[in-house]
């Protein structure tokens, strides 16, 4: 009898501490030191492309598109350091609690704090977008205050008045002032793919208030004026004025110069531009193939708005075109400086083959950047640039692989182009 009573007591005691549990208990507060630690953590290998997709990762099961990734990384750091995590409640609130935060017990059907964290992140992901991040949970910063852990967000007007928004998480700042970024997309989320990383990123779209370089608000700063943010964190709207006065190229040159530890020579710029271009050109193979795989799954059905959005590539194709133009500009600048003989001769040759139709019998351009977009069909950057310049690449996800890559312009899809 006594044993039974003891058992009952232990059982009740146990369930009382497990049924209603916070996501995690915080016993630290955000400080400048923790911001620096967050910055270091973002740069570390702990934050990598497979953090959510590798079944051995402690955060396997987190599912994020672009803005959600920023929230997820911030929440994970807070969790690992017993810090509070809070965001403005996306569905609103009538009571005193205006946030979704780690102290809530909404996810206590999960037994461990890590599982509760993953459940919380995924629910946040369903309720928010880049607009929440910009309007409520981050603040704009001065250029000098951009650090790993800051985010860069943009909003552009695309075709038919449609808006495109995106969030990049700054993982590192390279010596020459370019960015190492990690991010996700809707298509990535849908297919459970690893995060996307670009180690040498230059942003294309300049800040337009309130979109631009921003940092997370500490929980106690949610819903407070920008003037309430400690100056040491760099709250500032200067980037918007600078973008307006300097224009897109001038603004990003200023950012690069401000953040760089060393000056990038024109020769280095040519090398970097070529590498970046090659990475994006090859990445298009995956973007197109993801659409083709989806088509196969759906028996070539015309894509809905949402599917079209995930698997079409108009903005990404535009970015690819701009990267070709950046390489061209890097080559022209080097030529006008009389520096063509100061760089790798091969890169000069590649640029001339791509942009000047220089005929070279034995070139390594193909092996330097092969683009094999279907079995037994590979092209080099010269062919790709020719197709892009002629406007024959298709961004429509219902088109065949040949049409997507501009190999042919016949038999294009009759499915609706949503934008």
């Amino acid at each position, binding site marked *: 009898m006594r044993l039974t009573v003891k058992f009952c*007591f232990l059982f009740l005691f146990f369930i009382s501490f497990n*049924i209603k549990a916070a996501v995690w208990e915080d016993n630290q507060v955000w400080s400048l030191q923790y911001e620096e630690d967050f910055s270091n953590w973002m740069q570390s290998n702990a934050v990598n492309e497979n953090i959510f997709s590798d079944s051995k990762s402690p955060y396997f099961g987190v599912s994020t*598109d672009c803005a959600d990734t920023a929230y997820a990384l911030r929440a994970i750091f807070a969790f690992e350091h017993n810090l509070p995590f809070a965001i403005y409640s996306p569905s609103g609130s009538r009571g005193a609690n205006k946030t979704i935060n780690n102290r809530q017990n909404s996810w206590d059907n999960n037994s461990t704090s890590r599982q509760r964290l993953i459940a919380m992140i995924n629910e946040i992901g369903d309720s928010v977008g880049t*607009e929440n991040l910009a309007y409520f949970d981050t603040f704009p910063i*001065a250029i000098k205050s951009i650090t790993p852990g800051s985010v860069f967000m943009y909003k552009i007007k695309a075709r038919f008045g449609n808006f495109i928004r995106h969030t990049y998480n700054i993982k590192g700042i390279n010596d020459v002032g370019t960015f190492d970024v990690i991010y996700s997309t*809707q298509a990535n989320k849908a297919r459970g793919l690893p995060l996307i990383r670009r180690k040498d990123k230059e942003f294309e779209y300049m800040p337009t208030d309130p979109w631009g370089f921003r940092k997370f608000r500490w929980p106690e700063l949610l819903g407070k004026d920008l003037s309430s943010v400690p100056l040491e964190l760099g709250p500032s709207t200067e980037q918007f004025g600078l973008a307006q006065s300097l224009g897109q190229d001038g603004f990003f040159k200023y950012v690069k110069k401000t953040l760089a530890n060393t000056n990038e020579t024109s020769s280095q710029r040519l090398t970097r531009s070529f590498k970046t271009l090659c990475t994006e050109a090859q990445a298009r193979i995956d973007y197109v193939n993801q659409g083709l795989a989806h088509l196969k799954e759906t028996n070539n059905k015309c894509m809905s708005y949402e599917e079209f959005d995930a698997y079409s590539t108009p903005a990404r194709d535009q970015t690819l075109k701009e990267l070709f133009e950046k390489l061209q500009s890097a080559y022209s600048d080097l030529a006008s400086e009389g520096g063509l003989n100061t760089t790798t001769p091969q890169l000069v040759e590649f640029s001339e083959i791509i942009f000047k139709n220089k005929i070279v019998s034995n070139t390594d351009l193909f092996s330097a950047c092969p683009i094999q977009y279907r079995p037994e069909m590979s092209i080099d950057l010269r062919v790709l640039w020719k197709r892009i310049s002629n406007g024959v690449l298709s961004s429509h996800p219902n088109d065949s692989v040949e049409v997507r890559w501009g190999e042919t312009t016949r038999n294009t899809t009759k499915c609706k182009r*949503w934008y």
Partner: protein
Amino acid sequence: MIIVVGVFFYWLQSYGHKSLNAFRAFSPIKIQEKEDLDYSKKLTSELLLVNQKSDCEILKKPYAHLDKLKKNEALDLRFENTHKKIENKIYRLRHFFKDGDEGEIETFLVYLEDKAEMARIIEKSSYTKGQLYTKIETTKGKILYHEEGVNLSENVSGTLFLHYINNQLMGMQGVLQNQNEHKNIDCRFQQE
């Protein structure tokens, strides 16, 4: 006796914990001495903080009430949250735009609140013509709360985002542009 103690623990965790959480403020800001850190070197001397509290109070006047603004301006609705009591249950309806790869996806969510006003999603849907929410009859019930975020004056230098709760202005961010001025602002206001 033991069972009573156990029940007390259970109550403390289930209700006491919630009420404590709801009212427990986050700890105050802890700013370490500048001398301890390298951050002072990163400070910019040309901070352009135009949104001191007094500025914000002056700037808010023309935008203070959404219903009046709607009569005079073309607004772009960015999100809308409505809390409704229907048959003794409180639902939250959320309409917003998810980020797509190449555009934006109009999205509708329905949440159901528990007794502690914690809301959990019970329906997720992208826009389908003629059908927004399926779990509840939206014409029924009493509105308890209404929140909207709207964009005003989309232009090359940015937008002005205005945030309202129950028709009262809670925040304004972005670019404020008229004939005489062009200001980048980030103002938040407390509920009256």
